[in-house]
């Protein structure tokens, strides 16, 4: 199908994009790489009256280190982050997970922040943001605010971003900490049936799970082994409220959370 008609605004400065967003709010949508939004437009699941293209804004195009945080601008494409020389050293979890995001043909256009804005519960980048405890930098014509990952996602493809706000950047803590990632999908690059990310914490491990609940979920575990770890993972798997769908049963998803979860926790705590 084809998109319904809309005005297309090619912003030259961030202030212009914010001004249009402030004026037109609900009727306007930001487009960056378009790899999620364009499909929604084509299927007419989204019918904005105005599309604001932010990909020609140089101020959003950078990957910067600020103290212990890596700040990724809204114009940074997934391929650009994957090619960033410091990725393995600074964001090892992203280095593991990003090759699973879509395909080379979509990572070439799709942006890091765009995937997070879309908030698909199976997507890898929201999962990584949640696992690392990153922040989303929101900006409107009137104010700026930062929202922690756990408070940003609010449901299936829903976030706490208001209609007059855009994502200016996301920040992720740089860490050489031990981490692990694994995903099960029908085909490499398809949406995950279950994706798990694990990161070492001061006294144990944080396990984040995507593809099961309506948004990525994370839980901190102390150092557990054997039966105690299995029980804790089982409780977590049940609390995620898995559902049956065309891709997998709820039971299969819980199995994956338990099995992948156990492998990753062990890998990180080793």
């Amino acid at each position, binding site marked *: 199908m084809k998109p319904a008609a809309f005005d297309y605004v090619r912003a030259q400065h961030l202030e212009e994009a914010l001004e249009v967003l402030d004026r037109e709010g609900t009727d306007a949508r930001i487009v960056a790489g378009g790899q999620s939004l364009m499909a929604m437009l084509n299927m007419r699941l989204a019918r904005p009256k105005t599309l604001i293209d932010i990909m020609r804004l140089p101020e959003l195009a950078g990957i910067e280190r600020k103290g212990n945080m890596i700040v990724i601008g809204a114009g940074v494409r997934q391929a650009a982050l994957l090619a960033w020389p410091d990725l393995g050293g600074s964001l090892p979890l992203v280095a593991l997970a990003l090759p699973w995001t879509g395909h080379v043909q979509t990572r070439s*256009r799709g942006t890091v922040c765009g995937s997070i804005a879309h908030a698909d519960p199976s997507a890898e980048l929201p999962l990584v943001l949640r696992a690392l405890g990153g922040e989303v930098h929101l900006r409107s014509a009137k104010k700026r605010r930062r929202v922690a990952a756990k408070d940003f996602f609010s449901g299936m493809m829903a976030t706490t971003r208001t209609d007059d706000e855009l994502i200016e950047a996301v920040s992720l803590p740089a860490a050489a900490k031990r981490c692990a990632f694994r995903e099960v999908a029908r085909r490499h690059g398809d949406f995950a049936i279950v994706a798990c990310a694990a990161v070492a914490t001061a006294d144990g491990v944080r396990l984040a799970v995507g593809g099961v609940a309506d948004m990525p979920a994370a839980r901190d575990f102390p150092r557990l082994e054997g039966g105690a770890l299995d029980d804790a993972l089982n409780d977590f798997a049940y609390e995620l409220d898995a559902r049956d769908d065309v891709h997998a049963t709820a039971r299969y998803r819980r199995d994956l959370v338990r099995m992948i979860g156990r492998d990753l926790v062990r890998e990180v705590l080793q």
Partner: protein
Amino acid sequence: MSRLQAGRRHDVRFTLNGKPCTGEAEPRLLLTDFLRHQIGVTGTHVGCEHGVCGACTVEIDGQPARACLTLAVQIDGCEIRTVESLAPSAGNLGVLQAAFKRNHALQCGFCTAGILMSLDSFLRQHPGLDEESIRDVLSGHLCRCTGYAPIVRAALEAAAELADRSREKTDA
């Protein structure tokens, strides 16, 4: 700021297969339909129109991308390469195309234009492509005829031939 109004056509200037090109597009026009109906290059195919099948893959500024997930107005100022660029001259096939023909890497041919563009783009960037990376590139495409095996064979043959050529060039 430029605001392109809905329902009106706007100029789009870009480079198509190395030559400057101009067309007109409404904001909602997809790059696929723009190339096929406005510009008249029909080698790029339209499959699923939501980014899954890969039939519409073209190169945008040197990177393979879905034309169905791109607006025509977004490619203003960009360099676009389509499957029409692959044959060195009329009646002659490029290395990758010839390998596809030899290996029967297409049957109905609907997916082929997109697959050729992805593989061509990757062979240019990584001349010694191995089977694993070829399969990774192909994971972004759907082919319902071949079962992919002859496509992988053709890509490996083309990769080997291109690697040989670049070696000859270096030796000379």
